[in-house]
């Protein structure tokens, strides 16, 4: 599968976190923090470990027009990186959008 196809498949999931490492073994503090806030609101999410896929890592920067990781996609849209997720967690928007009780 080409990298474009892999990206399309990944972002087609309801919630997908492109991160360094895995949710249980994050390799970067920002990725770890994003996993924490997603878990704190009870969000279910898929993940892509971009450290294992250098081609995907580069392609996602261009696809998203976003130079850093993590990147959280919700229904194909970039919701943001770690600063945005933390802000949305603190304001309650993350729970509203992705929480266990969200529609």
């Amino acid at each position, binding site marked *: 599968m080409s990298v474009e196809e892999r990206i399309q498949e990944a972002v087609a999931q309801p919630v997908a976190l492109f991160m360094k490492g895995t949710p249980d073994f994050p390799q970067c503090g920002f990725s770890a923090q994003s996993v924490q806030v997603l878990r704190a609101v009870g969000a279910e999410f898929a993940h892509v470990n971009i450290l294992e896929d250098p081609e995907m890592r580069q392609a996602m920067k261009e696809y998203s027009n976003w130079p850093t990781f993590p990147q959280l996609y919700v229904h194909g849209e970039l919701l943001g990186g770690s*600063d945005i997720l933390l802000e949305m967690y603190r304001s309650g928007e993350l729970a509203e959008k992705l929480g266990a009780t969200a529609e």
Partner: protein
Amino acid sequence: MAAPQADIALIERIRARLESEFPSSEMIIEDDSARHAGHREAAGRFHLKVRLLSSRFTGLDRVARHRLVYAALGEELAGPIHALNITALAPGEST
């Protein structure tokens, strides 16, 4: 091992870029590198925090605001900056 600190020249270069992209904004730039010492991928590069209050952010969502900041600092992000925390506020907002 002592943590590396971003040098003043880098911080001033970033300040100048942001001032030209976001005129009459208020900004705080902090060097947070010491908190991220020992991080393998970060070796020799810096972690900065930018808090920016600008009327250019009015009416833009968070992703669009961060993209403006990333675009202003593209060269530094590809080079000496490993990580950049961004807080982007429009006038009248606070966090």
